[in-house]
């Protein structure tokens, strides 16, 4: 027995004619006799018409042009925002590394030069010469005098 509940449960499928033919006929008959269901079905028909209207919606005029311009500017922005990784981070790092390398090379070269021409090295050579000239014996362990109380 078809009642209001079965109409309420099958409004979309009834309007889409997706129900078995016997149920379709029963619902049809009920709607003819029930004013409430008839009104509801009429509202749902209007809703279906609205959905149909919405299907035919079109993009606004010049939407393509606006969208293409938008795409271009977004891609440009992304390219620009990608470059600061180099300019903000990599560039300073590379410059700092270069300066440090230059300093290190300078230090190494500097210490090499200092090592060959140091005034201290000359003094050592002179001391050795004087020692050999005077024939002073090498410092011996036995010569150590321990001072004790």
């Amino acid at each position, binding site marked *: 027995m078809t009642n209001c509940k079965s109409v309420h449960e099958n409004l*979309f499928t009834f309007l889409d004619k997706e129900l078995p033919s016997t149920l379709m006929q029963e619902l049809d008959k009920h709607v003819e006799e029930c004013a409430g269901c008839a009104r*509801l079905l009429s509202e749902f028909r209007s809703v279906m018409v609205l959905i149909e209207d919405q299907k035919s919606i079109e993009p606004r005029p010049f939407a393509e042009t606006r969208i293409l311009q938008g795409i271009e500017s977004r891609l440009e922005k992304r390219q620009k925002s990608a470059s600061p990784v180099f300019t903000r981070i990599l560039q300073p790092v590379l410059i700092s590394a270069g300066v440090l390398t230059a300093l290190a090379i300078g230090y190494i070269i500097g210490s090499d030069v200092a090592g060959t021409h140091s005034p201290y090295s000359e003094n050592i050579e002179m001391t050795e010469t004087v020692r050999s000239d005077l024939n002073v014996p090498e410092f011996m362990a036995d010569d150590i005098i321990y001072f004790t109380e």
Partner: protein
Amino acid sequence: MTDQELITGIIKRDKPAIEFLVRKYNKQVIKTAFHLLQNMDDAEDLAQDVYVEIIESVKHFKGAATLTTWIYRLTVNKSLNFIRKNKRKQLVKNFESFFRNTDGSRSHTFPEPAANDNSLDDKERRHILENAVNSLPENQKTAFILNKYEELAYKEIAEIMNLSLASVESLLHRAKQNLQKKLIVHFSEYSNKK
């Protein structure tokens, strides 16, 4: 231009290929975004996002689905993300307006019946329909829009939403049932107000 030629052109960032892409898919992207977002300005903005995403990630497109399906999927995903972000913003707005004693949820209120009129006009009916569709769970709403507004077959919807055919059938059945219930409540409330 075949899909493969189009993809090659987009990878090279050829301007004619990008223009062809927009001309070919604009209606599909705008319509889908509009039906999900209910706002044409937002739909156009989102379309730009979709195309930029296509341009930047088309090199990863493996051709498991058709280009059309892939673009549908991107549009749906971006639209749903947009809605989620907006919901959060709306929540904050509502919270703020609650303390300012103003109504921040005006767009979701039920429209007042037109005076001296026994039937709903199209504007009111559209508002009721929009609210009812928007109140559906995310996946039911997506399936319903793709099926009813975009007239896509269950198989296509299944591919776009990455679901089985049976899941789509069940989603659509539940969407229709829920929508029916919500619309019946709205229409009854509306006629009671008169």
